[in-house]
C-alpha cells in the first residue's frame, strides 16, 4: 500500500495525477487533529500510533498539531508506532519485509484512546492486523482509525473515523503518498495517483 519509493520520479510523473499537494496535506492533518480532539473531548488519554512506514511520520505530524491546539497533549510521550508485519494474513504469499520496531508510549495502552494512523486505507487488511497487534499490547478504552486517503475497495468490515480525503479509484490505479520523512528531503509532500498498467 502507498507509494513505491523505488520508482524513479520521472516515471511516476508521466501518468501521475496529484490529488493532494503538500499544503493540502497540511490542511487535512490540521482538520483531522481538530476532529480527534473534538470526538475525544480534549487530549485526555490520547495516544497516536503510526503504522509503518508512512503512517509513522503522519502520526508525528498529527501529534505536533494536536499539541499546538491543546498544550496539555505531550506529543513526545503520546505518539508511537505499531508494526503489523507479523500480524498480516498474507505472510505466506508475500515476500515478508523485515519488521519495523514497535514503540508504545511508556504509559501503555490500557485505558487509552488509541488512534491508529495510516496513509492509505484500501482493503482494510492492514488495519485488521493492527487491531490484533493492539490487542496483544494492552486493552485500550477505544481504538480509532485516521487515514490520509480512503481509496475504497474494502475487503473487510472496517471504516475510518477520520479521513483526510475520500478518493474514488479503480483497482488498476495506484495511490502513492510521498512524504519528506520517508521519501527523501528533495521531494515535496504529495498524494499522487498513477495508472498501474502504464507504470509497469
Amino acid at each position, binding site marked *: 500500500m502507498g507509494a513505491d519509493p523505488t520508482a524513479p520520479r520521472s516515471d511516476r510523473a508521466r501518468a501521475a495525477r496529484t490529488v493532494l499537494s503538500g499544503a493540502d496535506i497540511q490542511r487535512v492533518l490540521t482538520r483531522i487533529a481538530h476532529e480527534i480532539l473534538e470526538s475525544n473531548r480534549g487530549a485526555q488519554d490520547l495516544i497516536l500510533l503510526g503504522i509503518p512506514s508512512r503512517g509513522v511520520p503522519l502520526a508525528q505530524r498529527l501529534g505536533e498539531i494536536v499539541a499546538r491546539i491543546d498544550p496539555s497533549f505531550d506529543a513526545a510521550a503520546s505518539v508511537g508506532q505499531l*508494526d503489523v508485519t*507479523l*500480524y498480516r494474513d498474507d*505472510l*505466506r*504469499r*508475500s*515476500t*515478508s519485509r*523485515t*519488521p*519495523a*520496531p*514497535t514503540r508504545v508510549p511508556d504509559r501503555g495502552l490500557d485505558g487509552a484512546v488509541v488512534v491508529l494512523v495510516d496513509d492509505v486505507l484500501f482493503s482494510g487488511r492492514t488495519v485488521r492486523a493492527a487491531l*490484533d497487534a493492539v490487542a*496483544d*499490547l494492552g486493552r485500550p478504552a477505544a481504538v480509532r482509525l485516521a487515514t490520509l486517503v480512503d481509496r475504497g475497495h474494502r475487503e473487510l468490515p472496517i471504516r475510518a473515523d477520520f479521513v483526510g480525503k475520500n478518493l474514488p479509484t479503480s483497482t488498476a490505479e495506484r495511490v502513492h503518498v510521498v512524504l519528506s520523512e520517508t521519501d527523501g528531503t528533495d521531494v515535496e509532500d504529495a498524494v499522487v495517483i498513477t495508472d498501474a498498467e502504464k507504470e509497469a
Partner: protein
Amino acid sequence: MRHLLSTVDLGYEDALAILDTAEEMAAVNEREVKKLPSLRGRTVVNLFLEDSTRTRISFEAAAKRLSADVINFSAKGSSVSKGESLKDTVQTLAAIGADAIVMRHWSSGAAQQLAESGWVDAAVVNAGDGTHAHPTQALLDAFTLRRRLAGSRGVDSTGTDLTGMRVVIVGDILHSRVARSNVWLLHTLGADVVVAAPPTLLPVGVGSWPCRVTYSLDEALAERPDAVMMLRVQAERMGGAFFPSAGEYTRSWGLTAERFALLDSRGGQVLQQPVVMHPGPMNRGLEICDAAADSPHNTVLEQVANGVSIRMAVLHLVLNNDPEA
C-alpha cells in the same frame, strides 16, 4: 530463505535480515503477551537425534511464541532406536504434516542431505550436525555481540554489523560446529576472527578459513579482543588423547582468573569491557574459571535469551517465504 543449513553460504544481506528480524522478536519477548500469530496453523517438528537441552527448548519456545504447533521427537524411545532410516523417519513426519523440520543430527552434513534429497517438502533448519555447523548458535552469538557493540556506542543495533570487532574463539575447534559456524558468520559481518587452540585440536585445512590461527591463548589475548568465546571441552567426542591432562589444558587454554583479569583491564578494540561468551554448558574449572563464568561481562544467559529471538526470526523467515516471489 528456504532452509538454514550453515553460515558458509549465508550472505551479508540475509544475515542482517535475520538479525534485524530477531531484534523485533526480542521486543515481543519483553512484553507481557509473548505471542505472535505469524506461524498459526503451521507445524514445526523438532527432530533431535542427539542429546540437547537448551537448543531444543529454545526452538520449542520460539515456535510456540509464533503460534506454531510443535512436535518434539528424540531418538531415544522412538523407532530410530529400532534402526529406522532418516528417510523413513522424516517421511513419516511429513505425512503427519510437518511444515518445518528442525534437526539435530550426529552426522555432519545430515541437514544438507535432508534439504537436498527431495524426501520432504518441509523447510529444514539445521540445529547442529556432527562437527559441521550450528548456524542458529552463530547467529545468536553475532546478535549478542551486535547488541553489546551498539549499546556501547549508544546507537540502535538494527542495521549495524560487527565491523571493527575482534573475536577470539578458544579451545576445541576440531570438534566444534559452533566454532565453524561462527568463523564464517562473524567474518561475513565484518569482525576480525582469531582461533586459538592447541595444534591437536585444530582441523586439517584451518588455514583456508576466513580467520587467523594462533597456538597461544596469551598471544591472542595480547591483541586486545572485544570478545573471547570459550568452547566447551567436548569429553564425549574426545576418543583419543588431544592434550596431556585437564590441568595442562586449563594452564594453557583455560580462561583462568589471571587471564580474565588481564582481559578486563586491557579493554578491547571497540568495547571498553570485553565480553566472555560460551555456548554452554560450561565446564567450570576446566575451560573457564568461576570469576569469568559469573562476571557481568559473561554473556551466557544473554545468549540463551537471544537464542529464542534468533530462532523465532529464522522460523518466521523460512516458513513465511514465498518460493515464487
